[in-house]
């Protein structure tokens, strides 16, 4: 038979009789996406992601099934065709229910592969656990102790009880292997980077630069590196010996520190820009906020007070009766430090209620345990000195409408003023960036970088608190990694810029009920969460010893059994995900009902998650036409169409050896249970 000549994307091509447009495109190096087409089986023509347009008739054709006719003109790449494909993908995404990535990983500001490192821990491989952590978190000993645990707040286990104790995996793994594990380091290129500020963001920048073959010098204004890790976070939360161990590793991998060098004083941005390939500004937030009341100069600033005690190796005099104004983490640190210095009367004054306090719940709880008194809905209106003491005039507040931060605004109650007396008043009202004149700043005083790239100007990048405002260690680390990769691209011409990554989610745990949870393993533990191992309360209140011990391997392996392993088994090779990313299709573009069609994990090694199914029918045909078993079939019609077994029976045990359907499933609707 004769060849069929036709036009494909403006190019004259020819097809053998029986060849489809998709076949011809493949031979002509024209990429047409498809989900439901599979060489091993007869055509299904279901997904319509492969549509092309017949220019003359204006009709859209599924290229996987349409054979060209002589003289036909086929358009496979116009915006109109791409738009049609995108809509097909968005429709599929709108009914596709699952979690591309686990909620914990999404929640982690550094996007550490949480589920993966917890799994390594569950299996007892804490070295592997640490390796995964360190892909994203170079300070696991510190973060393993001080992280507010964003991951745990979004953990699906919250649906049925308490979240998995994720951060404790990091802490244990780091305690076990941090000092011995040495990551693979590529050879250095001939360019160097200056980093100003040796706090979490600066350290992370240096670390990720080194992992990409770039050396750096880290400058810091203080006598020792660590930034707020050393001079802000108290010893009892993060022992400085631990920090020193962590920093020793930075020295080991060749990162140089130059301390007691302050930007604007004995360090010039202009010179750094000239001398180094790039400059990273990670100077943090070291400017205390103001109480805005009369006599406020009588109060000491929280971060400055903590810095002074830190410089004195966490020793100091009994401060007498102490008042701390503020409800954030720094306030808690000051309160609990005052307790440890022997103060007989430690008071927190906060203008809203405990529910609105920005401090972590666990910090507030531990402060309570240690004897801190909380004076809520109370704000200072003036300070004065009387008889060698400080008298603070306070006013009661009541909560009104929510303000811009979403928290209810405190309004003064007229006539409610009263006086309290103290020996030391500490203001812990927040921190700001202290940017030098040559750094462009926003109206809030933060460094004014490009929000996407954190690029400031020329070869200067900035990250951390000085860009975001005072935040957490893990957020600082995430920012550091971001500019490290930006600097790598800047210096080497590589392209780290993240492509558009989509994430389908079953929804936040607070919107789910226990029946919505999908159990990959049949033996997920329903035990309660592992308990923290506190030192005795008396010791907590009188010394700066670390308040908790690292939990044992045995406990953490057991804790790992509680993990649901939420992420998709097919996240690495999901065609719906990759094609959607290529076509810019968004899971949120089209919203509607999703069928809760359930999952089946009764088979020992195979899970069928029908909620992920895109009804392409490949599995049905593979089983029937290739394997000759016919175990699966499509059921019902309309939107509730599903793939199932006869009478809903489990797949037979013999499927253990085959799994041919699993190999061909374009999404994760059919998969091995093992991750």
């Amino acid at each position, binding site marked *: 038979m004769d060849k069929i000549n036709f036009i494909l994307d403006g190019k004259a091509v020819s097809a053998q009789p029986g060849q489809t447009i998709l076949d011809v495109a493949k031979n002509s190096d024209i990429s047409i996406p498809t989900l439901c087409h599979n060489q091993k089986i007869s055509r299904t023509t279901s997904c319509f992601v492969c549509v092309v347009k017949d220019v003359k008739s204006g009709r859209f054709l599924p290229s996987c099934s349409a*054979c060209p006719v002589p003289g036909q003109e086929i358009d496979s790449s116009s915006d109109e065709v791409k738009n049609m494909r995108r809509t097909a993908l968005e429709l599929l995404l709108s009914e596709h229910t699952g979690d591309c990535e686990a909620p914990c990983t999404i929640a982690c500001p550094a996007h550490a592969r949480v589920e993966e490192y917890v799994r390594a821990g569950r299996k007892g491989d804490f070295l592997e656990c640490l390796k995964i952590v360190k892909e994203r978190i170079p300070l696991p000993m510190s973060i393993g102790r001080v992280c507010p645990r964003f991951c745990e707040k979004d953990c699906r286990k919250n649906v049925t009880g308490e979240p998995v104790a994720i951060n404790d995996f990091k802490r244990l793994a780091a305690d076990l292997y941090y000092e011995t594990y040495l990551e693979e380091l590529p050879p250095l290129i001939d360019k160097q980077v200056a980093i100003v500020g040796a706090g979490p963001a600066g350290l992370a920048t240096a670390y990720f630069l080194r992992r990409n073959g770039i050396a750096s010098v880290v400058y810091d204004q203080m006598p020792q590196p660590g930034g707020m890790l050393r001079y802000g976070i108290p010893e009892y939360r993060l022992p400085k010996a631990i920090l020193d161990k962590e920093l020793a590793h930075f020295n080991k991998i060749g990162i140089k520190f130059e301390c007691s060098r302050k930007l604007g004083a004995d360090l010039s941005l202009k010179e750094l820009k000239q001398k180094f390939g790039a400059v990273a500004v990670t100077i943090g937030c070291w400017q205390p906020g103001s109480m805005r009341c009369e006599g406020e100069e009588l109060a000491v600033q929280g971060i400055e007070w903590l810095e002074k005690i830190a410089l004195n190796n966490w020793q100091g005099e009994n401060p007498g009766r102490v008042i701390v104004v503020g409800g954030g983490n720094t306030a808690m640190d000051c309160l609990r430090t005052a307790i440890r210095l022997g103060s007989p009367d430690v008071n927190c004054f906060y203008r809203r209620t405990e529910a609105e306090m920005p401090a972590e719940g666990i910090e507030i709880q531990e402060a309570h345990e240690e004897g801190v008194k909380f004076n809520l809905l109370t704000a200072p209106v003036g300070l004065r000195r009387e008889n060698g003491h400080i008298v603070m005039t306070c006013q009661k507040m009541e909560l009104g409408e929510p303000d811009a931060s979403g928290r209810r605004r405190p309004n003064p109650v007229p006539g409610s003023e009263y006086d309290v007396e103290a020996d030391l008043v500490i203001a812990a009202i927040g921190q700001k960036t202290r940017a030098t004149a040559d750094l462009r700043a926003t109206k809030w005083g933060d460094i004014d970088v490009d929000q996407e790239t954190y690029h400031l100007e020329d070869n200067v990048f900035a990250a951390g608190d000085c860009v975001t405002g005072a935040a957490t260690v893990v957020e600082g680390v995430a920012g550091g990694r971001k500019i490290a990769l930006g600097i790598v691209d800047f210096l080497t011409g590589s392209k780290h810029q993240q492509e558009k990554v989509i994430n389908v989610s079953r929804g936040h745990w607070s919107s789910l009920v226990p029946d919505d949870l999908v159990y990959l393993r049949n033996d997920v533990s329903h035990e309660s969460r592992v308990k923290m191992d506190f030192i005795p309360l008396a010791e907590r209140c009188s010394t700066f010893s670390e308040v908790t011990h690292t939990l044992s391997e045995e406990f953490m392996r057991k804790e790992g059994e509680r993990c649901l392993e939420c992420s998709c088994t097919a996240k690495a090779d999901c065609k719906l995900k990759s094609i959607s990313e290529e076509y810019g299709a968004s899971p949120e573009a089209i919203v509607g009902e999703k069928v809760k069609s359930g999952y089946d994990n009764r088979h020992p090694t195979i899970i069928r998650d029908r909620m992920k199914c895109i009804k392409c029918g490949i599995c049905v045909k593979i089983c029937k036409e290739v394997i000759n078993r016919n175990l699966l079939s*499509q059921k019902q019609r*309309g*939107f509730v169409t599903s793939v199932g077994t006869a009478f809903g029976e489990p797949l037979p045990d013999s499927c253990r050896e085959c799994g041919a359907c699993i190999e061909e499933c374009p999404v994760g609707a059919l998969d091995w249970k093992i991750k």
Partner: protein
Amino acid sequence: MMVSDKIKKIKVGTASCGIAAGADEVLELLRQYVGDITIEEVGCVGHCYAEPLVDVETVDGTVISFQHVPSTVAGVENVLGLGDRGRFTIPAGRRNKELHKVIGLAGKICPTSFEQYVENGGYDGLKKALSMIPQAVIDEVRKSGLRGRGGGGFPTGTKWGFMAAKQAEQKVLICNADEGDPGAFMDRSLMESVPHQLLEGMLIGAYATGATKLFIYCRAEYPLAIKHLSIAIDQIYEKRLNVIAGLELEIVIKEGAGAFVCGEETALIHSLEGKRGTPRFRPPFPTDSGWQDYPTMINNVETLANIPLIVREGGEMFASVGTEGSKGTKLFALAGDLRCPGLVEVPMGITLAEIVFDIGGANPAEVKAVQTGGPSGGCIPVDKFDTPVDYDSLKSLGAIMGSGGMIVIGKQRCMVETARYFLDFTHRESCGKCTFCRVGTKRMFETLERITAGEGVPEDLDFLEEMGNKVRSGSLCGLGQTAPNPVLVTLRYFRSEYESHVREKQCGALVCNALTDVLLDQEKCIKCKLCIKNCPVNAVSEDFVIDNTLCVRCDTCIEICPKKTIYRVKKGEGYYRGQN
């Protein structure tokens, strides 16, 4: 009981429509009292609104018809005594505008009587065809200009030509009797009333094209049609009419399980093969590769039932009726807001106004639109009713001829709700294969649900239009390609109704529950308390005020009020507890 001595023969219409109206009971009573007079069961003449219908043939040769015959002794006495009550004459509109060809024998002969069919010219067409060469038969069909009556409108003669040209060890002819459109009953009526006419058409088709295996794919919801066809097939076997040119043809009835999509030819073939009823991409067309890969021709019931007439009277005779592009007559199932619903047969080219007003007896002042082509057709507004009914004119309005369902929509209906209603059907009936049809129609339906619930936003209309067009062009079969029609066509002709739903949150027709209140007019109320007693949620207070907070808009009070003092009003005009 007095039985008139003028009566010679009695015919009772016992097709499904008659039975539903009580014809079986009437027949039973008549049998008790008629004595020796012959009673015959006949099919449907199309006047569904007048069922049960009884025709009485008198000794002097006239026929007296009775409508709405009650299944009571008094009712039967009136008929047998040839009383004056319930005399039925065909309304003038119908008499003048209809042209009964394909249903010419329906309601006149006993469906299961082979002899009566033959006496009335039955199987003359087959005889004549067998005397011709097959190609001449096809030429005759081609000359007639007959186009597929299932909705596609493909020229039947051309299809037969393709089929005849195929060389294969076996060829298959399938009669598509999976009449799935809600409100359509043309095919059922034909199969129940004149089963032999369909079978004759099939035998002629088999002879002309060389098919030896004949299927009738009939939905299982048509038990009477299946019964009559089975009897007729037995009679054919008995008379050896199935032996054509020395070959014994097999005729099989296959009952469909009720999936709308199985009316689509490739899905139908899959279903016949015992597979899941889903369409596949064409080509290959069934005439190239159909049932078990054999060349297969699929014709609709009405198409095949026209064949005996065409062969008997000649293609040119058939083509003398109708328009340039649409020849012959067409059956329509008239339903909805009109006085005389039922089955009608009209010449192609007749206007919608003639069908809806003259034949259907609808009041022009009360009609808003007509939905042609079933749930996947389009609503044509009343100002376009001068459009001639033919394949191409309807298509140009965005509607389709479809198989012949015609639903009249009164002014009291909300077009958004109407579109939602139709999409509710189609989105459920999608086979689930194509993404656009399975998910796209669902998302459109959800959007319509939101709009009718008063939660729509103006952007929803753009979404409906864009998605509607994509579902149209991104679906394999006719179901998906036409499912958005009700939405797209109402958006085209009744956009203002959508606009008021999404912008002012008002339903002008006072239909959408979320956008209306219920009000009792205290001044006209006679305080009979029927509303209070019957309200399922106790929303009517003892002092006759309806609390719209409680009211579930079930309309029970509106329907039960003897003085019509309760009615729907715009949202906000009703009483709400704690207000006013």
